[in-house]
């Protein structure tokens, strides 16, 4: 069997004396759609920040397709095929939708730091950017400044930037946060489309999204994974119900 897309080995993260992630072990297989759920403050976003290299880990290891990426910088991890989105929209506000996406495809197409190519002459970059815009349904907003898009459109662009480089492991941090029912349904369809044949890990609060999309679910409570299982089994899991779902239902 080939290595897992992502493997976390006894991962720890502390800020000062406060332990946020306390020994997480998790393996996500290639092609799996994996959701991480848990109450606020459980460390879900921190976990993403560790995997993507945004924060240094305190101890433990992160393997990406079998390779140790624990100490690598974000751009090095990205170049190895892992891309992430952000909970708070993180786009290039003063660039157009097209430019946002095109920036995100440049490295993977090998243009690196070139100052001898004319951007508009790069057919492959344009075509890739256009196909991504189509995938996220923003082709009609091609020349609109990213900062002027509606919230739902910005969230779609956020996902577009994340997938544009062709990464095969995609981390989505609360992709439907702040969306209404209709927008959420569209976002779910979008996530389903773009994660075809890829490994997806997402943090999500909306349980209908989680149970509709995920192949497996991990429940993170106070920095520890208390259960990892298929959606049906997670629903039945007593510990999970007590720690999280039951608490939700009580509201």
């Amino acid at each position, binding site marked *: 069997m080939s290595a897992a897309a992502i493997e976390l080995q006894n991962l720890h993260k502390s800020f000062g004396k406060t332990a946020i992630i306390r020994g997480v072990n998790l393996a996500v297989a290639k092609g799996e759609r994996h959701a991480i759920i848990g109450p606020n403050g459980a460390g879900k976003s921190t976990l993403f920040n560790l995997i*993507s290299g945004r924060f240094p880990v305190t101890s433990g290891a992160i393997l990406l397709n079998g390779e140790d990426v624990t100490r690598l*910088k*974000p*751009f090095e991890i*990205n*170049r190895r095929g892992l*891309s*992430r989105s*952000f909970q708070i929209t*993180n*786009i*290039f*506000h*003063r*660039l*157009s939708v097209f*430019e946002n996406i*095109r*920036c*995100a495809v*440049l*490295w*993977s197409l090998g*243009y*690196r*730091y*070139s*100052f*001898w*190519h*004319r*951007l*508009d002459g*790069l057919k492959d970059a344009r075509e890739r950017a256009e196909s991504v815009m189509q995938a996220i349904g923003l082709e009609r907003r091609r020349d609109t*400044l990213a*900062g*002027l898009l509606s919230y739902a459109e910005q969230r779609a662009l956020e996902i577009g*930037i*994340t997938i*544009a*480089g062709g990464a095969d492991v995609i981390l989505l941090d609360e992709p439907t946060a702040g969306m209404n029912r209709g927008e959420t349904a569209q976002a779910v369809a979008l996530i389903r489309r773009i994660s075809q044949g890829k490994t997806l890990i997402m943090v999500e609060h909306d349980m209908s999204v989680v149970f509709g999309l995920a192949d497996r679910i991990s429940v993170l409570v106070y920095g520890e994974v208390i259960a990892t299982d298929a959606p049906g089994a997670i629903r039945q899991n007593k510990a999970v119900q007590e720690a999280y779902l039951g608490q939700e239902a009580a509201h």
Partner: protein
Amino acid sequence: MPFAPTRSGDLLRFAPMNVGRWFIWGTTALVMLALPLVFRQGFALTLMSSMGTMIIFALSYNMLLGQSGMLSFGHAVYSGLGAYVAVHTLNLIGKGQIPLPVPLLPLVGGLAGAFFGVLFGYVTTKKSGTTFAMITLGIGEMVFASALMFPAFFGGEGGVSTNRVVPKPFLGITLGPSIQVYYLIALWCFLSMVLMYAWTATPLGRIANAVRDNPERVAFIGYDTQRVRYLTLILSAFFAGIAGALQCINFEIVTAENVSAARSGGPLIAAFVGGVGFFFGPIIGAVIFIFFVVALSDFTKAWQLYLGLFFVLMVMFAPGGIASLIALNLRVLEHGMLARLRWHYLWVLLAGAVTFAGFIAVVEMTYQLNDIAADGKGKVFGIAFDAQTFTPWLVAGTLLVAGGLALRSAWRGFRREWGEIEQTILDRGSA
């Protein structure tokens, strides 16, 4: 702030490009060719030559500030050291020890600038934001101090002088007459403008914009933001070095002042006044800046005061610079509403002119009173005055106060109208 760009991003696209690109570059070249035919005097040539070098310098600065979001307080390090290397090279050419045509000297300056960009940029671009700004300030002071400490290379207080007319001129271009110097500078200026514009539309140039807007995200699309800043700084230093070498050819002397903090302030002022959000902004800014420094300093000793005041007013009322004023007015024109502003503009300009005249009179008279060498007598706008008498003060004070009151009311009217027009345009956009 009625002139604050509401959509600074679309102003960025407001630059010579696409269909009009060849037309605009062609016109620019023609204007640069034709200018000396219109302004023939030696003074005008010197002025325009200085403007040419300043345009390169300011544009190279804006590669950092406007395009990449790096606020540098030490850009003169690159132009200045480029100028020093150029002046020594020129002296060696003069002695016949280096067989390099003098017109290619700016390339030497550029390479020297890039070399120091590689050296210092490695340190400065490790950081961004305020830290970057502080480090550039520190390196600027360090280089300035070195310039006085190592006279062998920097020439001490007197600097290093040279002669641009070498025994064996290239293709008969002696660079003796200032018209030849002008055309040399114009050529390099044009080349640099085209290249720096082209850079904005390369992968590195666009990623530099992305780093300016959101460095954090750039790291998650595969780019090392440090590397982006570093490479950009090296390229920017290259063009600064070209400007430095042209200054060396123009003035035939390079002193410690060339690497000073004051010199670093020049492109900052030029870029801000012209507009950092536009490619052509710093070009306008450079022309105005040199006008203040060279032309106005001939008329009044208080020119720096006027420059400072102008800078403050621009930053307060038009933070997007002159280029954004042009773009915003063009947008109003596009919507066919510029005519609604014509009377408001007239009143603001009239009242502004009266206020400014009063202000200048007060400044000049104060200057005459405080200048030990002067006797209080002087001239402003060609009118003789004696600052030790009461009447001129009364006149100046009246102008200042009456003008100021009129300006306030005119400005209010202008802002009201402008606000209504903005609203109409917004409504049209959403309809």
